[in-house]
Each structure stands twice: as C-alpha cells, then as structure tokens.
C-alpha cells in the first residue's frame, strides 16, 4: 500500500518536472550534436598529413575541373573484395577517396558511381558494354563519360606502382576528364619507322602489340603519322615527335628544320642501338617464312640538324655508366642499362622535378655546346663514371656465356671518363637553318634490280622486299657468329666501330667525325668462318634486373633462326664517298609561288633531344617501363611542347606507399659475402678462354677450344649452382631477419610489460607484508 502524498507536497510534481527538463536538456544537446556533425559533414576541409600531399588535389586538376561545364559521370567497376587479390584491396579505398575529392570540387557536374561487379550479374554486363575487361577474372576499372565521349582506365591498380614512389591515379582521372571534356585535341606529328600502333599480322599471325606510349599520347592528342621521306610538315601540327627516325632523308630533315623555324616544337628520341629495331627483321611468329617485314636500322641520327645546333650524337657508341648500372643479379650489374639516380635528374624543371626512376637501354649521348642564340638545359645526364663503348656490346646477348664474358671484360677494362654526359636536354632560342643553301636535292633513285624497300631481295619490284636480308640479294645469315674476345687495341680515332654486318649493324648515316677515344675501347669481333658452328638461334638479350627489384623478363624473340641486321636501305643516304653521294643542295626551283625557305626562326623555338628510344618500348620490358618514369617523361615533354602544363603538373605525384628499401640492402649484404668466390671462378673461365686465344694456328686453336669448351661448360655449371645456392642463402637470411622483426614485435613488449607488472606486484606485496 503506497504512502499517500500529503496534501501540499509538490515533490512528485517537481520530480516529474525535473525529468522533463532533463529529457529536454538531453534532447537539446543531442540535437546540437547532430547539427554540428551534419554541418561539418558538408565541409570537405581536411588536413593532409602525408609528406607528398597525396590527398590534396594539385593545381593542375583544379584548373581542369574549373574548365568543366557539362555533366561528367565517373563509374568505378570493381569486383567484391574477396575476389580481388590482397594487394589490390587497399587500392579500392584510395580510389574512392580520390573520386570523392573530385566530386566535392564539382558536386553539381561530376557524378561518381560505384558498381560491385559479381560474376553473371547485371553490373558485369554493364561493365562489359563500356569496353572494360576483367584482368585475370578481376574487375577494377573506371569509365569516364561526358556526353558522347567515354574514356577508360581499364585496370586501376596499374596506376599504382608498388615499387616506386609514384601514384598516378590523380593523373589518370584528370587526363580522362580532360580528354572527354575537350572540344579539340592538339595535333601530334609522329615520325618513326617503329610500329608504335602495333600491327595485326595477316594469316592469323601474332603481330606486335601497341606501345603504351602511343596509347597515352593518342588519348590526349590527335596523332598524325608523317613519313621519314616527307618534304613538308603541315604547320597545323602542334608538336613534332621523332622516335628513332632511322632512315630520315635530308629532305625530311630540311622539312623539320623549316617547321622548327616556322615556330614548331620538336622532340626527337634518337638511338645508337635500338633494340626493337634490331629485332625488326627477325622471323615473326605465325608468319610464313620470307614474309616478315624488312629490318629497321638500329641507329638513328639528325646529324645535319644537330650540327647546326652545335651538337654531335655519336651514332656508333653507347654509354656504359658504372654509377647507374642496373643490377642484373646478386653478383653483377649491367652498365649499358642505366637506372638513373637522383643526381642525374634535373629538379628545376616541371618536366622532371617529380620524376624518379629512369631506365635507359643502350643509350647514346650528346656532346657539344649550343650554337649562338640558343640556350641549353640538361634534363637527364650520366654519372661521372661513364665511358663510351662500341655498339657491338649491345648486340651480344648478356645471358649467353660469350655475353657474360663480354660484360666481365667490359667491367674489368672500364675506364671512367670523369665527366658527365648528356642523355636528354632542351634547346630554346632563335634557331638558324641547318640548310643555308636551301632545300636539298632528293636522293637518286635506286638502280633497277635492287629492291626499292628495305631488305633488297633481287628481282622483286620495289616495295615487295620481304624477309631478312644481309646485303641486297643475299640470303640472310645468323645474327651472331661465334664471338671471340680479342685483346683490346686502340681503335683509330674517328672510325666507326661497325663490325661486319652479321654482328653489328652499319651506322645509319655517315656519322660526323667522332672525337678521339679517351681510352682504348674494347672491341668484339666475330670469329672467322672456319670456326665451329655456333648455336643457330640468338634470342634477344634478356633484360632482367635483380630479383629485389621488379624483374620483368624481356620478351624473347621467336626462336626461329636469327636474321642479320639491316641491309642498306635506299631510304638511307649512301655512305660518304660512295657512288651517288648526297649532292649539294640545289638552288630553289624558281617557282614564284613556292614559299621562301626560312633562314632563321621567327620566334623562340623549342627542341627536346633524348639519346635513347628503347626507354619507351614497353614491349621490351613491360612491367619495368610501365612503372618507372620513362613514359611520364616522354608525355611531359609532349605536354610541355604543346603548352599543356596542367597535366604535366599532375603527372607522377608522390605516393603514400613506402616499400621496405632496406630488404634489398640486406640481400646485397648477404650475397656480397661470397662474391669473391664467384669472382675467382669467373677468372678461371677467363684464363681458359685466354689459353684458347693464345694458340697460333687454327688447328691448335680448334683443339684448345674443344678441350676448353668442356672445362668452360663445367665451370659455368659450377657457377650456376653456386649462384643458386647464394640466392637460397640470401633468401634464407632475409627471411630470418623478417621473422625476427615479426616475433620481436609480437612478444617483446608484452614480455616487458608483464615483467613490469610482476615487479610492481612484488614490490606492493613486500610493502604490505613489511607493514
């Protein structure tokens, strides 16, 4: 029975009022809490704590977004996380973060949609209609659409480089937005004998894939192919890009000269030994014999233009750089494959300031000083530990025993020149013509019976020359005769180092006199014909860096019998002194309507020159080239020349990912321990080889070769076994170090804290018992 409330007692009423007031107070505070959070959720303000500011949109992106005035839809298609490989899962969050930032900058115009694509779902069908394809069963692509235009990022994780400090997701999105929202693309004139657009071979053959650089440029520019024999370059071309212009005629150089003087911008990637071209005459898989296209010369030059600008590009030499040699295994590195360090990259220009890893493959260098009126800016350069060596080093397969011997010899005989060399540079200023006499005369037509196209199979009409050829009309020979190492002897200054055709290609054009050789070059010459038959096939050199770095295997050439290097092409100017040498330029024809050739540029011109073209050939080493700065560098040059600075400022930002760089050092430390053993084994092989060479007569040499061959084979097997053991031990050491860190983290601190806790408990117990 409850106690009745005495009359006049307002306690229950007051209690009820108190509850009401309390509830109202709580509701009010909750409302304030929700309102404050809703208000802050509308704001995209944030603090970017990353050192590289990877979460902050760059000025270039903001500029691009400001230009957008129509609806743009960005659709992300991604498989469920469980269907993705573990390394791709964190990428989803990063991509969504970027998409969210784009949407926040233009919430009315940029719409972002995410579709989780499961197998046989409607989302999968829709993803397919956009043109996206799954990679190994996984979907992770983006489609950007504006009105009728759609551009794709087919595989988003490719924009994230796990081994270098770059993320390109912002660039990928911004360039996609720029592409779909731009009314007109700029025109890029392309002069190159290389099949950058790929080629579908007839008869169902394989064919060459499209180069990634071509795809990247095509997405931003309208590409116009220009022949290497052209006599005029359309002034509507915004940027002229020459990629390995092997076989360019004097008339075409004149056309480039006039285009430049007329205000055009020129970018030229030259090469002393182009690896792609060296494989261009080989049998293509699936092609009937004799139907492969003719070979492309391996060297390219713009001698006339460069001379006028004050420079020389040594067509017969490649640079070996010990300071930037690429590691090829635990015990060796290849100085002909350059992995550029930070010191070799100019950080003062927008083109290269955010770029890091560069990979040069058998590169040439430029020497000289700019002509009056021109300013030079070096973008990329070698270290001081470099030496120019013969191009014949490039034609040897580093994976073969003879190739390894060559490398070993190069390493031992290397003499650094002590000065840096130019790999890539910019020239600006008022250019003067390289053809003061005017337009040069066209080359004389080829005599009848000689093939008109490259190759020169006798009897065929012009343009019908197929098949790998040596000299015109002769059957092809193997690309490598047996290679023997001769004692080094000084090469006469100024002479090109071209070996006979089977081993090394002839220079493309008469090279200017080379400067005197600083140190006696090591020459490699093929063995005379009476040597035992070599292995027939000569696969392309394997360019496989050390395991610690991403190690893409160079796509090996087909194993069909190898073919020689390029035969002389009618497109090439004949060697100096030969019949039909280039006649002096003729005076203008007198046509009153013909434009007057320019002698000097009307305004400041811009030329970029790079000493290697293979650096862009992702068909050679896809993973390496797609992940380093080679391609962004090339596209940056084009953007700079075309005046598009927005995308250049975005390209190659820093990354939030930080790889474990010291693991490589641990591996190197582990392998260096038995490096001396391997060195002495290498020296034994060298000694056997030297014994063979020292024989006076062919008969003795043959006998020594037969017996020495077996010893060399055995030694090679021992070296291979020791190297395998070395790798195994290095891996074991790395693994044990990593295990140590793992268990130290899991157990150490808990053990320490447990110890501290026990100590405190014991002290308390002692104090208590003392009392």
């Amino acid at each position: 029975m409850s106690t009745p409330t005495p009359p006049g007692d307002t306690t229950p009423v007051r209690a009820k009022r108190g509850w009401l007031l309390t509830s109202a107070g709580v509701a009010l505070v909750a409302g304030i809490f929700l309102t404050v959070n809703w208000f802050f959720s509308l704001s995209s303000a944030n603090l970017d704590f990353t050192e590289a500011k990877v979460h902050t949109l760059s000025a270039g992106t903001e500029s691009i977004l400001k230009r957008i005035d129509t609806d743009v839809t960005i659709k992300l298609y991604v498989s469920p996380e469980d269907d993705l490989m573990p390394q791709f899962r964190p990428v989803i969050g990063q991509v969504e973060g970027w998409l969210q930032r784009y949407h926040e900058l233009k919430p009315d115009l940029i719409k972002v949609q995410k579709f989780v694509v499961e197998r046989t779902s409607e989302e999968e069908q829709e993803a397919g209609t956009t043109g996206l394809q799954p990679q190994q069963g996984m979907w992770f692509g983006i489609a950007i659409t504006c009105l009728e235009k759609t551009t794709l990022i087919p595989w988003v994780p490719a924009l994230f480089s796990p081994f270098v400090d770059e993320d390109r997701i912002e660039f990928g999105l911004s360039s996609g937005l720029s592409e779909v929202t731009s009314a007109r693309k700029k025109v890029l004139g392309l002069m190159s004998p290389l099949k950058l657009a790929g080629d579908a071979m007839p008869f169902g053959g394989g064919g060459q894939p499209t180069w990634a650089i071509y795809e990247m440029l095509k997405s931003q520019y309208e590409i116009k192919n220009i022949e290497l024999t052209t006599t005029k370059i359309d002034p509507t071309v915004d940027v002229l890009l020459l990629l390995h212009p092997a076989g360019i005629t004097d008339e075409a150089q004149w056309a480039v000269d006039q285009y430049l003087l007329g205000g055009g911008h020129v970018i030229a990637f030259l090469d002393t030994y182009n690896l792609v071209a060296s494989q261009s005459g080989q049998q293509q898989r699936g092609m009937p014999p004799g139907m492969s296209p003719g070979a492309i010369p391996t060297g390219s030059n713009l001698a006339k233009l460069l001379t006028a600008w004050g420079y020389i590009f040594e067509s017969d030499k490649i640079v070996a750089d010990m300071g930037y040699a690429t590691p090829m295994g635990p015990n060796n590195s290849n100085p002909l494959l350059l992995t550029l360090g930070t010191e070799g990259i100019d950080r003062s220009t927008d083109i290269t300031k955010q770029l890091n890893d560069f990979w040069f493959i058998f590169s040439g260098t430029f020497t000289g000083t700019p002509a009056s009126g021109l300013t030079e800016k070096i973008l990329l350069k070698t270290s001081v530990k470099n030496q120019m060596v013969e191009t014949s080093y490039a034609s040897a397969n580093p994976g073969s025993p003879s190739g390894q011997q060559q490398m070993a010899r190069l390493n031992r005989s290397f003499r650094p020149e002590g000065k840096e060399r130019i790999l890539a540079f910019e020239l600006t200023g008022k250019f003067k013509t390289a053809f003061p006499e005017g337009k040069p005369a066209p080359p004389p037509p080829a005599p009848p019976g000689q093939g008109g196209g490259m190759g020169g199979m006798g009897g065929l009409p012009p343009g019908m020359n197929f098949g790998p050829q040596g000299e015109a009309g002769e059957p092809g020979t193997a690309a490598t005769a047996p290679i023997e190492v001769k004692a080094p002897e000084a090469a006469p200054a100024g002479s090109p180092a071209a070996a006979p055709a089977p081993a090394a290609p002839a220079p493309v054009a008469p090279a200017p006199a080379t400067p005197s050789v600083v140190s006696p070059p090591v020459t490699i010459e093929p063995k005379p014909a009476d040597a035992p038959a070599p292995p027939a096939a000569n696969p392309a050199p394997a360019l496989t860096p050390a395991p610690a770095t991403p190690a893409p295997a160079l796509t090996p050439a087909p194993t069909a019998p190898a073919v020689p290097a390029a035969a002389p092409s009618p497109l090439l100017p004949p060697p100096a002194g030969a019949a039909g040498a280039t006649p002096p330029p003729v005076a203008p024809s007198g046509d009153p309507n013909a434009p007057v050739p320019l002698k000097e540029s009307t305004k400041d011109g811009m030329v970029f020159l790079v000493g290697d073209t293979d650096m862009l050939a992702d068909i050679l080493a896809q993973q390496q080239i797609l992940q380093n700065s080679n391609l962004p560098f090339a596209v940056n040059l084009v953007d700079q020349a075309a005046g598009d600075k927005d995308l250049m400022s975005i390209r190659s930002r820093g990354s939030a990912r930080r790889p474990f760089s010291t693991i490589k050092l641990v591996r190197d430390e582990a392998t260096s321990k038995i490096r001396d053993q391997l060195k002495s084994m290498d020296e034994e092989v060298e000694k056997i080889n030297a014994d063979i060479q020292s024989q006076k007569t062919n008969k003795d040499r043959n006998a020594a070769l037969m017996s020495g061959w077996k010893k060399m084979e055995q030694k090679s097997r021992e070296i291979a076994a020791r190297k395998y053991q070395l790798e195994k031990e290095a891996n074991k050491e790395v693994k044990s170090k990593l295990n140590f860190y793992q268990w130290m983290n899991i157990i150490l601190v808990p053990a320490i804290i447990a110890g501290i806790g026990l100590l405190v408990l014991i002290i308390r117990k002692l104090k208590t018992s003392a009392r």
Partner: protein
Amino acid sequence: MRHISIIFKRELAAYFNNPLAYVLIIIFSVLSMGLTFVIGKFLDLNDASLTNFFLFHPWIYMIFGPAIGMRLWSEEHRMGTTELLLTMPISPWQAIVGKFLAACVVLAAALLSTIPIVVTVYILGSPDGQMIFSGYLGSFLVGAATIAITCAISALTRSQISCLLISVCICFLLVLAGFPSVADFLRPTMPWLANLGNGISLWWHQSEMARGLVRLQSLAYLTTLIAFCLYLTSVIIRSKRA
C-alpha cells in the same frame, strides 16, 4: 583542476596497482601485432606506411575500450561509493573528467606499447612520419570515443558484465556502420544511408586518418561524440543522485 587531478590520480592508481591495466595492455599489444603481422601479412605487403596496422584498431577497441571503461562507474555503484564520492566537494563533472582521463592514460599506454612496429618500419624502410602520427591520432581518438561510450553505459548499471556487453554491442554497430561491405550493400539503393553510416562509423574515420587524411568532419565527430557521452554520464549520475 585540483579536484580533477585528485580523481585522476586515484583512478590511475586503481588501474595500475592491480593486474587489470597490465593485462589489458598486454592483450592489446599482442592482438594488434598478431593481427597485423600474421593475419594482415604485414611484411609481405612491402609497405612501411602502417595503414593496415591502424585499420585493425577499431575492431580491437570494440572490446578493449569497454574493458577499460566498464569499471569506471559500475564499480562505484556496486561498492556503494557513488554517493560518497558525490558528497565530496567536487562536482560530478570533475569526477567524470578525472575518471575519463585516467582511462585515456591506460589507452595511451597501450598505444605506446606498439612503438616497436614504428621502430621496425624505420629500420626496414623510410616511412612517412606524419602519416604515422595521424594514424596514432586517429587511433587514440577512436579509442577514447569507445571509452566515453562505455563510461555512459557504466553509469547506468551496477554490473560490469552488463556494461561490457552493452558497450561492445554499441561499439560494434558504430565500427560496422561504415565498413566497405556494408557501404557497398547500401549505396545502390540507399546512398544517403551509406553516407550516414560513414559519418558515424568509427572504422571509416580511423581509415581516413590512417591514410594521412585528417578530415575536419572526423575531428568534429569524435570530439563531439566524446563530449556528448560524458554529458550523458553526467545526466545519468545526477539523476541517480536525485
């Protein structure tokens, strides 16, 4: 401030003078490292950014926070010392803040116990120090939020077990609300709910800060959540006192 300090020291002594704090710190350390290295395959990811390490923390705090905070007021209610405490010349706010700060010190000590992984990544690579700082900031705020939630629940009940269970459930919902699978499930049909889930999710805010992106929205949410939960604690304490 003096009163807060007195309560703070009292609570801290209560934590560290019995095995509870040490056991909690050891469990946090073993769990966070074990999940990172063994389940998360930290060394195989070849990334010294510690993002994956921080992403496990909200799941650990789901239980760790309630474990630290469950005794804050439930113990007082069980022992009957709540009224005694509140009759002292201190306001309820001072007691609440003092206790909350002491619990945060235990949380901070647990986070400090993960320093070896920071040392490890500096040895193995060159991590982004600022990003690691933002990850720890996010982890601390998320942990403090779970403690504040538990503080409010513990003011409601005398049983620590009940407090633990209820707090774990609430924290679990708050962690799960913004998890990618949940957001992906909701986004096609109810995008506003997916966005709301992100906004209230402890996991989502922690994941952003672990990547080095400290949103004003995250700072505001976590600090106001802590303040709101402490306010609720005060309301509950006062109502019980009344």
